[in-house]
């Protein structure tokens, strides 16, 4: 294998793919990136066995086609550190990959391409074409609420629910829930649910651009494949049943408060500084026209803050993990946020004041 490529065309896909490769690997080849040189293209593949990302660079000057794997992070670090001027030459000599650029010369270890695991092919059941920015927005609006390393493994991912006339993303860690929907004719008749693992969601958000160019989502029984631009992303799916999210969306809230999103977020963050550093509980005292926020910690330090809100209901005291509220306020992309509450032990419903696409449910903390 021998080829010449400009640094800038190699660096971006290499860095994306290195993101998929995890630092700690049980199998050495999983630390590597697979390089495949064809007539006029170079294809890079990284995987952690759960998620695979393939990037294709074309055109590339290929002297000699070939396939090999090299340590992904090292190759990426070298390319990033090189100057921009000189092109990069990659040449496989024996079992070493030589990288030359100007006066720089690196010799990297390799592992045979045959050792590199393939994501098994999976029969396609249906596909959707959606503008990249819409998919990205949906994932960003919900992904933060996914669980991390929860024993309820199906929560460590994001539910995609495809119905005849919409696509929904739902994430929950059992304490809060985020839902975002996209109205579209999907062409399928029976609703389908699948769970994309956390890692896959994170990588996908990084991959998708804020552009109207469509991404193709191919749904299989065990995999989701997304093609966007020069990248093909494949993720295994989590088997399991996602909880019935409709059941936990509160409908009976009689106390509606509208607040300025940025002010509420800043006030919460300020007060949160003196909340318990792990538990992060704050008390909210909602009275007509005003929301007070109190925090204190085991060191007896206290914070007290307040903001004007649009509210004319009964007084309510309720406790929350300040982080959960701030996460929602970060995800809402309107100036005004609507919060619907019922009592101190019931969940709060949060959404942008005029946007029904996304909604958030946050369980309180016991006072």
């Amino acid at each position: 294998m021998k080829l010449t490529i400009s640094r800038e065309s190699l660096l971006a896909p290499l860095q994306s793919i290195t993101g998929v490769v995890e630092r700690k690997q049980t199998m050495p080849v999983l630390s590597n990136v697979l390089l495949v040189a064809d007539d006029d293209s170079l294809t890079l593949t990284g995987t952690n066995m759960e998620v695979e990302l393939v990037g294709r660079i074309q055109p590339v000057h290929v002297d000699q086609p070939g396939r090999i794997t090299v340590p992904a992070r090292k190759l990426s670090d070298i390319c990033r550190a090189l100057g921009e001027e000189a092109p990069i030459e990659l040449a496989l000599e024996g079992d070493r990959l030589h990288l030359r650029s100007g006066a720089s010369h690196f010799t990297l270890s390799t592992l045979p391409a045959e050792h590199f695991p393939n994501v098994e092919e999976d029969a396609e059941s249906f596909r959707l074409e959606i503008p990249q920015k819409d998919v990205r927005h949906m994932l960003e609006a919900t992904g933060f609420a996914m669980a991390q390393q929860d024993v309820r493994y199906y929560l460590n991912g994001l539910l995609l629910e495809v119905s005849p006339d919409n696509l929904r993303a739902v994430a929950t860690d059992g304490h809060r829930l985020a839902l975002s929907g996209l109205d579209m004719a999907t062409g399928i008749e029976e609703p389908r649910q699948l769970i994309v693992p956390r890692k896959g969601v994170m990588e996908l958000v990084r991959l998708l651009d804020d552009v109207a160019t469509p991404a193709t989502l191919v749904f299989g029984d065990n995999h989701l494949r997304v093609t966007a631009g020069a990248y093909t992303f494949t993720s295994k799916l989590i088997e399991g049943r996602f909880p019935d999210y409709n059941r936990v969306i509160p409908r009976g809230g009689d106390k509606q408060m509208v607040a300025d999103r940025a002010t509420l977020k800043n006030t919460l963050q300020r007060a949160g500084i003196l909340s318990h550093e792990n538990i992060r509980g704050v008390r909210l005292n909602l009275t007509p026209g005003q929301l007070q926020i109190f925090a204190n910690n085991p060191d007896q330090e206290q914070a007290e803050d307040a903001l004007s809100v649009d509210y004319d209901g009964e007084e309510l005291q309720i406790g929350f993990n300040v982080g959960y509220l701030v996460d929602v306020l970060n995800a809402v992309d309107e100036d005004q946020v609507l919060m619907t509450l019922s009592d101190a032990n019931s969940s709060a419903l949060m959404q942008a004041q005029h946007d029904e696409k996304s909604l958030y449910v946050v369980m309180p903390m016991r006072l």
Partner: protein
Amino acid sequence: MRTSEDSGRPRKIIHLDCDCFYAAVEMRDDPTLRQVPLAVGGAGGRGVVTTCNYLAREYGIRSAMPGSEARRRCPNLVTVPTDMPRYKAVSKQVMTLFRELTDRLEPLSLDEAFLDVTDVTDHHGSATLMAEYLRERVRREIGITVSAGVAPNKFLAKVASDWNKPDGLHVVTPDDVPAFVQALSVDRLFGVGPVTARRLKEMNVSTCGDLQAVAPDRLVAAFGKQGIRLHEMAYGRDDRPVVVTRQAKSVSVERTFDRDLPDYPACESMLATLAEDLRNRLARRPRERPIHKLFIKIRYSDFSTHTLERVRPDVQAPEGDDFRPLLDAIYPDDARPVRLLGLGVRFREDHAPRQQLSLF
């Protein structure tokens, strides 16, 4: 009649009053003082007697009497100076012991307190047995005597504790109230001093029965707002709640053993029982604050006392096993007889919410 929250039952109030408290502490610490007329304070020319024992009272000596007057009445009166720090320490022990029964406690001074035991289920829920139990424990563990009054409200409980003083108990059940007040002298009422008593006398009122016969508006005309109170008290009515000002920072139970526990296994075998007592005490209080720490208290036969505490925010209802690591850490390598063992919890002192609720 004021009833306990929402339950509709009459309340059960105990008034506990240490008998000649300062003098009792002095006599406890120096038994020779028991045999003589004793006054605390009033030694100097101008000082007044703060408390005196019952022997001294036989000579007509009273609190607030000038020392010179007291000595005139009883030339062989023994006088000791007041030692407030010591009385305060004993008072704290007494109140702590009361709080083991309930946290609904309102101290009136160092030596008396109201307890609202309406919701206490120990001692078959009998306030009389509770009062006897507390009196007995104070006598045995602290070495002074307490008089107690049991009644459906504070006013009657306080009158009752004075009924059989010293070292006495008097119970006024809700059914007893009408008869009890009928003959009750008005100078026993809260707020009725010599002046009010004289003016009542002028109205031909000397008992609550007499007082009941006086129209309320006449009482108001004569005594203002106090008139309404007098009218209510005449019928034995008093709605004032037991005011719990202090929020407990900790709750503990301890036991002094009749025979010292000889070794570690003996101590270990007590953990489950003590923990159960502790849980019962915890169950009685409204749990406004979560547990932050567990602690153990141990007193050896030589009276040296040690405590050890550990942060355990995860505990809700402590079991004997939860205290085993503390016992392991505090108990010495060689067997040492243990006189007293106590277990307790300390509550968090911040009000921040802690327990995250779940969606499903």
